[in-house]
């Protein structure tokens, strides 16, 4: 193999040229110079860009602009949601419900809260990665203040029944935080219809720039959370720091494009995924991880019998793909998510996440299938009987 293939859209996406252009335009003009907090013309020009982005992000998830707080990405937004809401509501209760397969941004936030005296129930999904709303209902206690679930799991691509979980939370009175880093722009998100109180998203998962994201806070059910840090009072004091105008312009355009393209992107990517999945599963001893149908269009995660994971990845190194979340990558450790699904360690260790996007092609898919098939065969032939 000489050509490289990008099959890691779940880790990050290329920036859409329209997004890059919007960012460059801001950077070159007075809106890029002014501090959006300043009241003079340059500050106002910046402020207009910021507010336009707020409108666009809100539109993507069915929220109002005033419910959007900008952050440095989904990691920060997840922390602000989970830690911020828990600390703010500490007097109402100290119990939090989440799942065993959350992204570290949520899992580690929960661990930090445990050190502060909160109690966290980590619910196991079924062996296809799905968390039933009934499980959440059973886990709720009078002192449960918050439930946190990722809409789409970043390793498996499974889609959780967020609306059903949201209804359960509403009935109980707990807040629902949804990590939508993988789903925003990839499947429809509607905070009202899905009974979502807090939602985190990140621009770089939807063809926007890295280093910017947003937290939605339902204006009625969750006006405030405790900020993670302090300063000049930007974003209603919930998230201080000079607002990065060009980054927000990029996020805004990315959100607008995502919404516009949802109806065409999803079937196109799904068609690629189906061929990819079929090609990969055709190789004997290859197993799909995660639910077969309740899954986002962009992720295929497979485990491979009889090959060692690191060599498998090395053999496919011209393909940018991941063995789980990019963050935990290459530690050699089997993915905790796959462990949770009951895969034996040595199988979990030989797992690959292929993820597709707007700029993926059928040729990429065919080349990936061919490379995968050849590499698995070669490594198996190399192994002792």
């Amino acid at each position, binding site marked *: 193999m000489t050509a490289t293939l990008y099959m890691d859209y779940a880790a990050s996406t290329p920036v859409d040229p329209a997004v890059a252009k919007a960012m460059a335009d801001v950077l070159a003009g007075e809106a890029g110079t002014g501090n959006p907090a300043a009241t003079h013309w340059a500050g106002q020009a910046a402020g207009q860009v910021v507010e336009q982005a707020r409108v666009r992000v809100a539109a993507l998830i069915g929220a109002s602009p005033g419910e959007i707080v900008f952050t440095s990405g989904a990691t920060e937004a997840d922390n602000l949601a989970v830690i911020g809401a828990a600390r703010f509501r500490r007097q109402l209760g100290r119990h939090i419900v989440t799942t065993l397969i959350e992204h570290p941004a949520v899992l580690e936030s929960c661990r930090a809260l445990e050190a502060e005296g909160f109690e966290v129930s980590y619910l196991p999904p079924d062996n296809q990665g799905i968390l039933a709303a009934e499980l959440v209902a059973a886990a709720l206690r009078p002192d449960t203040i918050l439930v946190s679930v990722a809409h789409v799991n970043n390793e498996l691509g499974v889609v959780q029944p967020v609306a059903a979980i949201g209804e359960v939370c509403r009935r109980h009175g707990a807040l629902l935080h949804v990590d939508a880093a993988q789903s925003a722009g990839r499947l429809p998100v509607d905070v009202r219809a899905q009974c979502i109180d807090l939602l985190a998203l990140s621009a770089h998962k939807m063809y926007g720039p890295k280093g910017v994201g947003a937290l939605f806070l339902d204006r009625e059910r969750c006006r405030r959370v405790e900020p993670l840090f302090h300063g000049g009072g930007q974003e209603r004091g919930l998230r201080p720091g000079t607002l990065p105008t060009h980054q927000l312009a990029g996020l805004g355009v990315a959100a607008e494009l995502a919404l516009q393209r949802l109806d065409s992107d999803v079937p196109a990517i799904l068609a690629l995924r189906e061929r990819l999945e079929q090609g990969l599963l055709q190789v004997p001893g290859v197993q799909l991880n995660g639910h077969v149908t309740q899954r986002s269009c962009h992720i295929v995660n497979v485990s491979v019998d009889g090959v060692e994971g690191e060599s498998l990845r090395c053999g496919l190194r011209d393909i940018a793909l991941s063995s789980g979340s990019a963050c935990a990558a290459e530690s050699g450790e089997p993915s905790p998510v796959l462990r949770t699904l009951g895969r034996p360690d040595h199988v979990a260790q030989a797992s690959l996440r292929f993820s597709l996007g707007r700029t993926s092609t059928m040729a990429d898919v065919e080349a990936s299938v061919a490379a995968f098939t050849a590499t698995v065969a070669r490594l198996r032939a190399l*192994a002792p009987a």
Partner: protein
Amino acid sequence: MGYPAAVLARFDAPPNAGAVAPGPGTVLRGQAGGTGEGVSVAFEFRVADGRIVAGAFRAFGCPYTIAACSLVAERLAGREARALAEFKPLGLADELELPAARRGRLLTIEDALRSCWRAWDNKGLAASNVSRSDP
């Protein structure tokens, strides 16, 4: 992926993979590790006139393991059979730029070599047609 070029070259097209070619002498086989441990290696050495005339390996393991096996098989060729008892794969760590945490893999390889040696030892005692140096 930060593998050294030498490792990648052997990983992509490992010399001495598979089985030793047919020929005169005795073929010794030895194995160590297991797929459950993440590393399983097997060697074959053809020994004739007390010397290793060919070596081959099979491996289930990380790229370092595969490269190390390939290198070990290569390095042992031409040596006296007792090298199977004496060769220290850990000596290859620097050449392979092996991360400290991976050194255990070389010990598994050493185990497999020793297991070849025991095979030789057994054979040596049984078959007097094979000249051998002192163990």
